């Protein structure tokens, strides 16, 4: 079962501090980073929103582009099992959440390994990461609004006891989260990259982790 222990056990203050410091750079800096990385805005793009709550809400809206992208959302269902593809069709072969890692005898790891693996006989690949698994049902958000997801991921009752720092770390460093930008042959990556997603998360947390309205 995937829990926050994975992130928590290797929690690094240094990484978070580095991320926070990176986010502190304003747009007025001469060597300003690009405001957009592969379709995802960087925190710099939101720096001129003065109000913390407004900025946090806007940052979260940007983060939700990643979270609701099929590369992420396919394994964050609210009901039933995972989906596949950009059209988010039901997973084939059919799989169930079961004990969290699939059904007895038909587990996620029955097919998915630690890394993507390209098919030899056709285009495409089977995705893999450590560990390949569904998000817990309480973290399912397919069909949810960014505001609902925001409330959900901050709720320690539902998020597996994660603190904001844990969330920043998860979004910045988690291997399975990282997969979204390295999805293997035959899949389009989520917008941006993990560094930007992590930075957005850190900036959102720093701005008070306020949620969008609605």
């Amino acid at each position, binding site marked *: 079962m995937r829990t926050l222990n994975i992130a928590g056990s290797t929690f690094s203050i240094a990484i978070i501090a580095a991320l926070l410091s990176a986010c502190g750079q304003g747009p007025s800096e001469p060597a300003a980073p690009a405001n957009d990385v592969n379709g995802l805005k960087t925190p710099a793009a939101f720096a001129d929103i003065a109000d913390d709550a407004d900025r946090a809400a806007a940052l979260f809206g940007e983060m939700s582009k990643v979270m609701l992208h099929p590369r992420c959302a396919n394994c964050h269902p609210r009901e039933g099992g995972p989906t596949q593809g950009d059209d988010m069709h039901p997973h084939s072969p059919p799989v*169930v959440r079961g004990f969290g890692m699939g*059904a*007895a*005898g*038909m587990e996620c790891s*029955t*097919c998915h*390994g630690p890394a993507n693996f390209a098919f030899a006989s056709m285009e*495409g690949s089977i995705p893999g990461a450590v560990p390949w698994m569904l998000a817990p049902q309480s973290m399912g958000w397919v069909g949810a609004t960014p505001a609902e997801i925001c409330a959900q991921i901050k709720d320690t009752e539902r998020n597996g006891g994660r603190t904001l720092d844990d969330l920043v770390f998860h979004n910045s460093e988690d291997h399975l989260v990282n997969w979204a930008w390295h999805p293997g042959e035959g899949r389009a990556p989520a917008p941006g990259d993990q560094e930007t997603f992590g930075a957005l998360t850190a900036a959102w947390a720093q701005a008070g982790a306020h949620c969008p309205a609605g």
Partner: protein
Amino acid sequence: MAVTLKINGENRSVDADDETPLLWVLRDDLRLTGTKFGCGIAQCGACTVHVNGQPRRACVTPLSMLEGADVTTIEGLEGREAEAVRAAWAEYDTPQCGYCQSGQIMTAAALLQRTPQPSDEEIDDALAGNICRCATYVRIRKAVKAAGEKLEG
């Protein structure tokens, strides 16, 4: 890349492209042909083996992830669950063409190791990844159930 792993209890060393799927290592290099090729993309389950006790599709398992692994194929499947499954397969005359049956049996044995008396739903969930084009499914379901009952009895 040479990889040392245990196949059906025996230590074997395989020197092949490290991306070679276990399926072709088993069949081409080790001549363990009971593990079948059906789709090559983890859709049909005909190549199911056990890796470190867990059911695994050999067609999407690269050699590179198997250093030191303990692999069981249909040829080496033993134990009370395996015996119960094979006895039930015979009682219900389950196979038709037989080509998918190694995979069905590997999955069924893994299911019974985890859930000794599965319900119909648990059987369907476990075997959802094992296609049988002959559609022997009603007999598979009955046989797995009977095997479970025998194990418990």
